[in-house]
């Protein structure tokens, strides 16, 4: 154990920041799309926990991390399909259904976990990393930033993919319109319900993936309530980012850094109670909301179900 600022310590700190940031990034990117399209997805916490549980099951029984990510994303999409059916198609209250989904899935996964694994708490082996040639050799930054599971690089690539979608494609415009002026989109001949449904399903997939990463790579096991508000942090990221994917990335890194800093401090022998550690990301969020909250603009039709001809 070197000093507080030794190279290995710094590398571990940065590595931890990335690992903690990825689930938030995936959730934030997902939530961003559904908010853009006018659906406030409070159920994202439930989608994440479903993804964490299903992702763990998939990886545990198949031995493949990729299959785990696939089952995690699939579980997230499944939950999102229910949300889309209830909130987008039937137009039920998004907050009520969101709370219900979060509550129900937290309970359900805890229940299933209890009956399956309550005595054994099995762990997954450490995730296989894909070092990026040359870059991974840089001292400190190399092992911290360029020796991660392949999905980490894909998640960062997704940020740029989203920028492209929002800026350059018709789909991006449609999503924006579905959130700002759904009636205009309808007049233009595009199905609002279908656009919003697609956005919600995407959110579910991303949240499920984030949950699976959190359980499989971040923790190596599933424990009940493992997401502990990560989905809600994703909502905050999406709110503060004002529709810009790069800002979600920046925010996720800041929150991830906060998480990693406190864990690292504990490893370095500075005695911080776990309850204090758990408070840090939320403190960071509140600080950001107090500082930048005013500018956290949201689409005009957010949370309002679309009904043709209604005023």
């Amino acid at each position, binding site marked *: 154990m070197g000093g507080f600022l030794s190279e290995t310590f710094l590398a571990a700190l940065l590595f931890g920041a990335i690992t903690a940031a990825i689930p938030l990034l995936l959730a934030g990117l997902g939530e961003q799309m559904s908010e853009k399209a006018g659906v406030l997805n409070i159920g994202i916490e439930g989608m994440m926990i479903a993804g964490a549980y299903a992702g763990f099951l998939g990886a545990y029984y198949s031995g493949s991390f990729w299959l785990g990510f696939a089952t995690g994303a699939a579980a997230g999409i499944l939950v999102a399909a229910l949300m889309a059916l209830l909130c987008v198609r*039937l137009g039920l209250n998004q*907050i009520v259904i969101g*709370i219900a989904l979060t509550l129900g899935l937290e309970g*359900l996964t805890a229940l*299933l976990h209890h009956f399956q694994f309550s005595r054994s708490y099995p762990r997954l082996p450490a995730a296989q990393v894909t070092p990026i040639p040359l870059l991974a050799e840089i001292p400190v930054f190399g092992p911290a930033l360029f020796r991660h599971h392949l999905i980490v690089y894909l998640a960062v690539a997704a940020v740029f993919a989203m920028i492209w979608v929002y800026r350059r494609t018709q789909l991006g415009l449609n999503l924006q319109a579905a959130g700002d002026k759904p009636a205009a989109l309808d007049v233009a001949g595009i199905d609002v319900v279908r656009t919003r449904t697609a956005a919600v399903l995407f959110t579910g997939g991303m949240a499920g993936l984030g949950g699976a990463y959190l359980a499989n790579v971040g923790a190596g096991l599933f424990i009940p309530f493992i997401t502990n508000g990560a989905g809600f942090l994703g909502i*905050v990221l999406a709110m503060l980012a004002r529709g810009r994917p790069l800002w979600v990335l920046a925010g996720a890194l800041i929150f991830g850094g906060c998480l990693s800093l406190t864990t690292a401090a504990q490893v370095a022998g500075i005695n911080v109670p776990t309850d204090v550690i758990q408070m840090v990301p939320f403190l960071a969020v509140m600080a950001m909301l107090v500082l930048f*909250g005013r500018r956290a603009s*949201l689409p005009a039709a957010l949370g309002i179900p679309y009904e043709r001809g209604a005023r």
Partner: protein
Amino acid sequence: MSGDATSASATPLDASGGGGSARDIGRRLLITLGPIVVSLVLAGCVLLVLGINPLAYYGYVVDRGLLSPLGLQQTLTRMAPLLFLAAGLIVAFRAGMWNLGGDGQFLLGAVTAAASAPLLVQVLPGWLTLVAAFVIATVVAMIWSLIPALLRAYQGVNEIITTLMMSFLGVSLANVLVKLVFLDPATTVPQTRTLPVEDRLPRLFETTVTSGLLFGLVTIIAVHLMMTRTAFGLKLRVVGANPRAAVHAGLNVPLLTVTVFALSAGLIGMGGAVDIVGIQGNVRADWNPAYGLAVIPVVFLARMNGFAAIGFVFLLSVLSIGGESAARRLGVPQNFTMVLVSIVLITLAVAEYLDHRFNQARRA
């Protein structure tokens, strides 16, 4: 104005709760009890999948939560904090504010009440100690809601997120306080000092039911009447139904917003106090009953009507006391109650939708 859009849809102005013809009452009964029955069946299917006989489970829950004298007394005792929570949520939801931070407000109220009461009782007369504990819990919970309230009132920041974040913070802070600050030096388990049983809220008659139940009942009825029968309540409901119209009507919306949060959080903090000085006597480390999220469905189920909420709080208490017994005896974790409550919430929303469509079709 980010919060307006999301909140406006949830709060109808017709607060009186209907009434009217027998047919109307029958319809309301149907769309209230129907979802509950459907939910029990759906949740029963979950139990079946887990290899548990749903009838045995429900039978056990009803037996332990409702039919056995001891269980019934526990159920009535459990109602006391839940009624305060429901009252706090009714104020907020009727005024169109989504206070989802109940757990943090509740726990901080409980912890500060637990920390102060055993010390105060040494210098103050018993009744004054209880009053002081209530006041402290109320004020602490109010302070905890201040940031979301100010952000919503003056910056237009969506309160759903800020209250949730403050709730996570509050739960952790409460734990830190119990473990580091308000620790009872006399015990090895981390917990606050214990208020002696004789100094707690008196019990009702010859039972074990706390008199906190009466306070809870009076409070929720008072809140209901305030929201439905007073000019102040009407103002709050106007803010909830249409904040922009409220501004045009000359209402001081930011001030009313902060007031709503203070009232809501204060009532929830009182719930924490009543749980401590009436029932628990102290707070153990990592104690978090998570009543906050469980009571939200109750308030919706009751359509934000205080009288109806009393009935549903009773139902939730039966479920939760019976569920705790079942967790010990049948090995079904308490989490099952969460699943059941969430299914109720969804089926209720669907039932309201179907009812709405049915009415539209009949009118057309």
